[in-house]
């Protein structure tokens, strides 16, 4: 890969690029899905290729190919430069990126048990055992479990002399059931509804205790069929960690992407209400709300050694004591703030350009235990596991639904409720946060399906959260 990378960089310079970078990726992914006691999918995918991103005539161009041959390197580089020169026909003020010193580095995900060493038989057996537990109730029409493993070997090189090699391993799993009866359909999932992944080894799957939770979610899905619907009211709500992860993702994570703030996503998912003048002074949440973005967190799905511009992973303060203080930036956007890139440019694959993406965006834990949080709540709802989500194109008005909720009455968990939903406006919502559980209840959640860009890029991000309480929230938003 190195020889091809150097060939591509040289060709790009010859063709007129003032800056060029090459990123090659070899990815191997295994996916196993078991449904209703049968293997639904057992597949492996190998994908390899490299992309060349250049600046020529002060504009960006990018071309990629899956073929690792010198003439393909020449072709991709030449095409990238041609595309950049075409971009220059409408280039605005012109692209500038901060200069950075050359760097040579390596990074490898730290594993306890290599997930690639675990046989398909063993993984299937675990999922079949879990499926058996999930199917014990007759109302369960679908019981599905999934295990995913992926290894990515990445090489990044640029015309500044940087050369970085990384090996990143991801492991993930998830189970879900659908219960049907009397015209109603209810669903329960674990650990979350969108799968749960981390940059860890097989130990990630083992600690989820799928079999034990499989029985529980089946019981809950059936119980939901006869549960009362969530009332429509203004309530205190407590969100579990997995739902809070998605709340954080949608209302903060995307809003702090500086390229989005500057308008680069306006044609697709929109812009951001966190406009530049707000940095350092806007009250995003209550004083107990502290948020950071940490690409160094061990095992986080958004953890790596270096981003896809060759900038080292770091921890970025985003909200401090409720005040918005930081964006996710790149080599092109950070100088607009008088700063240096904080290393959040990530591409989903070799055939995509890097975009500013979340890494692990985390709500720092508070100082209260979960039992104490419930006991100190007089009248509210405890909501668990995301079911639906939607937010406006500046990240202000949102509506979420969870799979299940329980009433909290006079400090005790009470009746189960179905179809719970809640809605709000981002700054008001986060300003109503008056309690966050402590580190004992803090988990790093991995959301594998974050989408951004045209063409779309789906990437995995992490969110560290502990259950938290919010006051005065409209719940029960159904017509």
């Amino acid at each position, binding site marked *: 890969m190195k020889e091809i990378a150097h060939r591509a960089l040289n060709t790009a310079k010859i063709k007129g690029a003032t800056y060029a970078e090459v990123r090659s990726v070899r990815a191997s992914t295994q996916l196993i899905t078991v449904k209703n006691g049968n293997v639904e999918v057992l*597949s*492996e*995918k190998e994908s390899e290729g490299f992309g060349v991103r250049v600046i020529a005539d002060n504009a960006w161009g990018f071309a990629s190919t899956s073929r690792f041959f010198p003439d393909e390197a020449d072709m991709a580089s030449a095409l990238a430069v041609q595309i950049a020169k075409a971009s220059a026909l*409408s280039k605005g003020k012109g692209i500038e990126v901060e200069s950075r010193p050359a760097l040579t580095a390596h990074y490898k995900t730290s594993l306890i048990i290599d997930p690639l060493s675990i046989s398909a038989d063993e993984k299937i057996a675990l999922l079949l055992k879990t499926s058996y537990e999930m199917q014990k109730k007759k109302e369960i029409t679908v019981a599905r479990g999934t295990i995913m493993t992926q290894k990515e070997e990445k090489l990044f090189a640029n015309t500044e002399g940087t050369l970085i090699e990384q090996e990143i391993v991801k492991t993930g799993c998830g189970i879900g059931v659908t219960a*049907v009866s009397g015209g109603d359909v209810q669903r329960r999932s674990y650990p979350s509804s969108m799968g749960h992944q981390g940059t860890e080894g097989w130990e990630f799957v083992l600690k989820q205790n799928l079999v034990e939770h499989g029985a529980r979610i089946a019981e809950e899905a059936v119980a939901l069929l006869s549960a009362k619907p969530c009332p429509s009211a203004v309530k205190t709500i407590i969100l579990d960690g997995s739902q809070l992860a998605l709340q954080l993702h949608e209302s903060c994570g995307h809003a702090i992407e500086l390229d989005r703030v500057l308008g680069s996503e306006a*044609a697709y998912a929109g812009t951001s209400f966190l406009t530049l003048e707000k940095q350092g002074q806007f009250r995003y949440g209550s004083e107990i709300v502290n948020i950071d973005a940490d690409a160094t967190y061990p095992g986080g799905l958004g953890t790596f050694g270096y981003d896809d511009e060759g900038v080292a992973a770091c921890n970025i303060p985003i909200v401090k004591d409720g005040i918005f203080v930081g964006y996710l930036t790149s080599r092109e956007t950070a100088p607009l703030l008088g700063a240096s890139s904080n290393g959040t440019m990530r591409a989903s694959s070799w055939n995509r350009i890097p975009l500013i993406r979340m890494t692990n965006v985390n709500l720092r834990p508070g100082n209260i235990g979960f039992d104490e949080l419930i006991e100190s709540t007089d009248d509210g709802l405890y909501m668990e596991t995301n079911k639906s989500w939607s937010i406006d194109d500046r990240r202000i008005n949102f509506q979420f639904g969870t799979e299940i909720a329980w009433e909290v009455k006079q400090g005790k968990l009470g009746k189960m409720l179905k179809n719970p939903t809640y809605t709000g406006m981002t700054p008001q919502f986060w300003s109503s946060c008056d309690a966050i559980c402590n580190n004992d209840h803090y988990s790093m959640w991995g959301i594998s399906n974050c989408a951004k860009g045209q063409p779309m890029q789906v990437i995995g991000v992490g969110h560290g959260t502990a259950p938290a309480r919010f006051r005065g929230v409209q719940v029960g938003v159904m017509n």
Partner: protein
Amino acid sequence: MKGMWSEKKIKHLFDRALGLSSADQTEMVLFSRDLSLTRFANNYIHQNIHENNAVLSVRVVCGKRVGIAHTNSLDDEKVEKTIERASVLAKASAENPDFLSLPRPQPIKEIKCFAESTARQTPEKRAKDVTLICKKAKENGLTASGAFSTTVSQIAVANSLGLFACNVGSMAEMSTVVMSHTSSGYAEGLSTDVSEIDIEALSDEAINKALTSKDPVSLPKGAYTVVLEEYAASDILSFLGMLGFGAQSVQEGRSFMCGSFGEEIFNKHITIWDDGLSRYTIPMPFDFEGVPKRRVDFIKDGVARTVCYDSFTAGKEGKHSTGHSLPPGEVMGPLPMNLFFSSGTTSLEEMITSIDRGILVSRFHYTRPVHPTTVTITGMTRDGTFLIERGEIAFPVKNLRFTQSYLEALQQVAMIGKDTRLVRCSASFCRVPPLKIDSFNFVGSTEF
């Protein structure tokens, strides 16, 4: 054609590969794509890419055990390893008693899916077209963003039962959002032939919406009569397709079609179907199993009729695949990709004139299912929302959040537009008219 394989080369690849497999049944799917996309924001081109990739998927069947392997390295050694890997996976897998067989060959209808003009589009030409939009936006004191892409794709399928199907298709797509400080407008054009994309008309459409929706005011939440323009109406069609028109959703008991077959569930003027062979969509002659596409009438004159199948779901009911399989390894089951909603007799202007107080919705944003069985969806309006009073557009309003059962909405369709538009909805294509709906539930609003 750059990046695409000749049929002869594909047959050679498939014949060799199938010969290497000792499994009971083997399937090969080759999917190649050559994509160029020019993206712009703030009135300039900020991202501009080209991608070429070909993926071979091998599905191997041993008894009732199935293994799947994919590779994008197509040299002989890698192809051989991929077949071997798929076989190993099949043998390691557990039996699935519901699996019957890969599909047998059927005649494939030849349809026009490809336009040479799309394949010959250059980065320079795309840049010139984008420059036109940006220039017009600037002249009006507005900011343009968007994406203009041209794609040539090739799908080839073969299996050990003698099936072979091969098709090359093209698609050109332009979408733009034009903004002022207080408003925005959207336009989208889609065709197999890039020369049919009218850049000027699209930029005028988006600019006009942005200009007429400046300085919106707040509107209280509640149920309103609405006119949904095509971009918004397509969302209804898309979610019906995704949540209820595939056989898997029925077999799992979560489709709104369950228990409703033969019943009138919508206004009798509503017919909804899927037709991948139609020239009024982005056509595709066969699915990812090589089964020819068939027209499927989901709703006919308001009555729920049937759903679409792949070979696996069809086998469970003793039926035939309708040609709606997704790529190997997907777990969502068969889904419609080329949806149509019957047109009516009313113009958009007539719909507006007929309303005493209501809302004109250009488009929806970030719509998601709240309750799939009732197709209850939540989302926002976007890019031009207007109050209608006494038969006229009164003023623009700030974007509203809705939470609404699309099934109930279709039961309240009062007027159907006479003209239809082709709209991209995520992975599918929807041809829809505008709709007037008597009651649509808005549960809140945002600040802009």
